[in-house]
């Protein structure tokens, strides 16, 4: 396809390319929409659980008489519903579609992906119920009971396998930078998950090693899977939406390979102040600081690609969500690197500051990019346009302002909390713990308000998604990806 864009294509070439693209979209429609539907469901479930947990932080008596909804269960259930339900399902749908598009190959035997989706979501459903029922392992990010893990693995195998089979059968010889990110994510996740579950549950290690492996997994699961898919999606969506190649492909490749080299080392910065050997923590700090290289390369690249096209943020929902996510990626990554410094971590550790950072990364960056991907991909699969631009605006502004409010409240509150916990007060004596707790209430109120804003946005998003899948509203005009009318008249409509 590289050669095709260097000269003026003939009508036949245009027609053939459009037919190929429509056929690829058609082949991925059912499995990708299945992943996306499951993702939207879990997004709502996870958000409701989040709000319950958030309210309990400033109103402990809220739903306190129902053991299933006590904070110790709701909070991990929120994390797992969002992580295994929303984040992974949206990742799977996006990576399958992107890999098919970039490989220029139709998806074969999509039923295998449906089996993968069924098993993955069955495992997630059982896991969340078990956590709410009080059977959590209490290991963060891996709260599901041990016997749920094989179900998730069984669900993941066909998803990874089918994605790699598409890559093997690709008709496009060049591996675009997005594919590098997808392939990396496909390989890194089983490495992380198998090592962590084996050494934490099946043949458990003890003590410091346990914590080290846990945070090697916890940190890398975020960066080496979610961030990877998010960055890869950005590298596809921004150039496609604005119709301009990425500013510097060199920077894109440097970003990927330096990301692959450095990110894996950073996990132990979660254990600063813990009983780890100092050198091990220092390795994590150095790895975190080295992340300035890939993050800076990616940020510069995205920005320079967008230069001259920022006006399109007014009109394209995909671009608006994606660019917002890309900007937050830069901010949250730089913040994370600085947070790994011992001097900073001394204040921020065990405070709301860390919670704010986690939400900035996984929501402000990754989730917003996934929203952008949904807005781009779903109409191309359903053949139907989004029902209401107003609802999309509601979705964007409630979620964007909501996450910024949450981040601001938790960052400011968390920093003050950390200062009070780590240093003496004005009178030279330690600040009473309950005074610190009470001082946090206003920030926690703001957190709950932001959660309600985000829930409103998610409801708008879910309504839009359901209406689109049900084909309610306007039909798309013509096949998904046909440009010239002459070709459009000849190419069969893939979905309508």
């Amino acid at each position, binding site marked *: 396809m590289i050669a095709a864009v260097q000269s003026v294509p003939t009508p036949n070439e245009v027609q053939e390319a459009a037919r190929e693209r429509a056929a690829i979209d058609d082949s991925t429609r059912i499995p990708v929409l299945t992943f996306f539907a499951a993702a939207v469901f879990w997004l709502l479930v996870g958000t409701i659980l989040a709000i319950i947990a958030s309210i309990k932080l400033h109103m402990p008596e809220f739903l306190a008489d129902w053991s299933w909804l006590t904070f110790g269960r709701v909070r991990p259930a929120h994390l797992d519903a969002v992580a295994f339900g929303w984040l992974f399902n949206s990742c799977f749908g996006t990576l399958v579609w992107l890999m098919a598009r*970039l490989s220029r190959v139709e998806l074969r035997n999509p039923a295998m992906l449906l089996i993968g989706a069924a098993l993955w979501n069955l495992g997630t459903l059982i896991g969340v119920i078990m956590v709410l029922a009080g059977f959590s392992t209490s290991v963060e990010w891996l709260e599901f009971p041990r016997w749920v893990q094989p179900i998730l693995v069984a669900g993941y195998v066909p998803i990874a396998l089918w994605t790699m089979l598409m890559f093997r059968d690709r008709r496009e010889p060049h591996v675009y930078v997005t594919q590098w990110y997808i392939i990396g994510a496909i390989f890194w996740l089983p490495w992380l998950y198998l090592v962590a579950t084996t*050494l934490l549950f099946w043949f458990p290690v003890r003590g410091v090693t346990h914590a080290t492996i846990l945070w090697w997994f916890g940190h890398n699961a975020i960066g080496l899977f979610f961030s990877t898919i998010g960055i890869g999606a950005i590298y596809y969506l921004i*150039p496609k939406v604005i119709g301009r190649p990425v500013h510097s492909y060199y920077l894109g490749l440097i970003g990927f390979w330096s990301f692959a080299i450095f990110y894996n080392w950073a996990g132990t910065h979660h254990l600063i102040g813990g009983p780890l050997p100092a050198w091990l923590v220092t390795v994590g700090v150095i790895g975190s600081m080295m992340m300035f290289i890939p993050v800076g390369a990616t940020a510069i690249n995205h920005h320079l690609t967008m230069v001259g096209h920022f006006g399109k943020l007014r009109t*394209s929902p995909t671009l608006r969500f994606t660019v917002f996510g890309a900007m937050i990626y830069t901010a949250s990554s730089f913040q994370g690197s600085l947070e790994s410094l011992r001097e900073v971590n001394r204040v921020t550790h065990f405070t709301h500051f860390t919670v704010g950072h986690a939400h900035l990364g996984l929501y402000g960056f990754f989730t917003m990019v996934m929203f952008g991907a949904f807005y781009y991909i779903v109409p191309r699969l359903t053949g139907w346009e989004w029902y209401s631009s107003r609802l999309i605006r509601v979705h964007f502004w409630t979620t964007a302002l909501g996450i910024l409010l949450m981040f601001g409240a938790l960052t400011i509150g968390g920093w003050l909390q950390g200062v009070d916990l780590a240093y003496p007060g004005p009178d030279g004596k330690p600040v009473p713990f309950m005074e610190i707790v009470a001082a946090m209430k206003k920030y926690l109120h703001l957190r709950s308000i932001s959660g309600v804003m985000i829930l409103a946005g998610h409801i708008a998003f879910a309504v839009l998604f359901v209406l689109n899948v049900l084909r309610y509203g*306007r039909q798309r005009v013509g096949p998904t990806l046909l440009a010239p009318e002459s070709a*459009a008249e000849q190419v069969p409509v893939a979905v309508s």
Partner: protein
Amino acid sequence: MTVGYVVLLGTVTVFGGAALFAFWWAVKTGQFDHPDQQATSIFGPDEPIGMPTDDVLYPSERPAVRPRRTEPLPLLGSRFAHRITEGDWES
């Protein structure tokens, strides 16, 4: 700890080896050659460079009066480029 060493060393060998192999394969097959040209690989004859593909969402932000036309619109999203009319966006 024997199992731990086996798991750690085994996975490092397998996955680390896979990463090295991927890098070697990429160099060998010219994936790092001509990067500016390869950046265009996501475009094609039906979605060429210069054609935005998602820019016609908000009707209220477009000019109030537009001529009705049926021929392709330059630099408009391919999704609707061939047949956009005023009525298409009124809901």
